[in-house]
């Protein structure tokens, strides 16, 4: 026994370090091989090409959105150049600025609140529905609705600005906002008055949401009130192919 202890003590420390490093190496190689395994299998089931396509389309979408933001910035720059030439043009530019703010085409910053929603870590009971333990489009829409009622002026979900045409869609556990794929966790940023949290606490809908989704199913709902909240501009299409303006009916 003492001979064994003496032999252990005689092992140089660098060999011990190397031993641990090799152990970690072996663990990582095993983890990597396990992670690679299903992907190879998916290739034969035509799932990997779909993942690759979805990721490529998502990258394209990011580039197109950036192009749109750049072009809108340039257009605004050209339109603003004429500012000050005539009173009519000044008025028009001021109206344009207001309309852009109302439409969500301008990034905003101000006081507000940021909610973070993540899937539950609770084990799903044998007779439970796994979908109840994940963040759904309905959850995102409930948070958005409660924030509007609490006085929010602008909202974005994972950087996607919420506009008059924004839909929030569930596709098999994946959430799309403005048809953009969002990866969890979901961050709902809202600009609004400093008492938004108090207003939420007074809302029956909000209390019921927290009780059910967080209390019962364990959905992770946390929030932060940073000094300033940033909500980006809507980087999408102002799709008006079918609509035409009509004169507003005169007030009675």
């Amino acid at each position, binding site marked *: 026994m003492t001979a064994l202890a003496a032999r252990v003590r005689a092992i140089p420390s660098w060999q011990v370090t190397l031993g641990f*490093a090799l152990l970690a190496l072996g663990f*990582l190689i095993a983890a990597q091989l396990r992670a690679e395994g299903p992907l190879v299998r998916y290739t034969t089931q035509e799932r990997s090409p779909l993942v690759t396509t979805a990721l490529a389309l998502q990258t394209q979408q990011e580039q197109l959105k950036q192009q749109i933001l750049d072009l809108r910035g340039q*257009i605004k720059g050209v339109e603003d150049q004429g500012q000050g030439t005539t009173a009519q043009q000044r008025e028009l530019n001021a109206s344009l600025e207001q309309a852009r703010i109302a*439409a969500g085409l301008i990034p905003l910053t101000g006081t507000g609140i940021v909610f973070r929603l993540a899937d539950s870590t609770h084990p799903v009971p044998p007779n439970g529905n796994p979908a109840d333990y994940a963040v759904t489009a309905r959850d995102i829409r409930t948070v958005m609705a409660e924030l*509007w009622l609490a006085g929010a002026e602008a909202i974005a979900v994972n950087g996607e600005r919420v506009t008059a*045409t924004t839909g929030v869609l569930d596709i098999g556990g994946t959430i*799309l906002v403005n048809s953009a794929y969002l990866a969890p966790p979901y961050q709902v940023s809202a600009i609004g008055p400093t008492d938004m949290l108090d207003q939420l606490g007074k809302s029956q809908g909000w209390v019921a949401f927290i009780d059910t989704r967080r209390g019962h199913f364990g959905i992770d709902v946390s929030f932060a009130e940073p000094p300033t909240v940033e909500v980006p501009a809507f980087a999408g299409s*102002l799709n*008006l192919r079918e*609509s035409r303006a009509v004169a507003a009916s005169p007030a009675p």
Partner: protein
Amino acid sequence: MRASLRDPRSQLLVSLVALILGVLVVVQIRSQAGDSGLAERSAQDLTLLVANLNTRNDQLRTEVSSLDRQLQALEVGGRNGTSSLNQIRDDLARIRAWAGLDPVAGRGVEITISGAIDGLALEELINELRNSGSEAIAIEDVRVVAATVVGGGVGACRSTTRR
């Protein structure tokens, strides 16, 4: 002779192990974050997702072309010294119509619900209309904008828009 860390061969070995370890850690982290959980989705869900992304990208390309044309027209107007007021007016009208600040008319659907429906179901319907590409929505005579919230129980639906 006992090996020591001062031995260049030992140093080389340790460096090699550290290098492989570093590469594997990075690969592992990237492979975890890379597909954002997409690999776990079914082929059917992924097909739907790809279709949605395709449609959105087509709309974005159309928007890029439209904005490109608008920018060129504004620049040409500016260079020629011609008034760009009409172009700015057109831009203003388009943005106001899209944001729900001005009334619009056009091809579409009118849905009449005569059965029992609560605010939650009505909100689902509006969300579905938005996901289907609707350009403008109204409930009764109330235009639905970003901040419109629909709620209430059966027979007592209400829409609220805070401005």
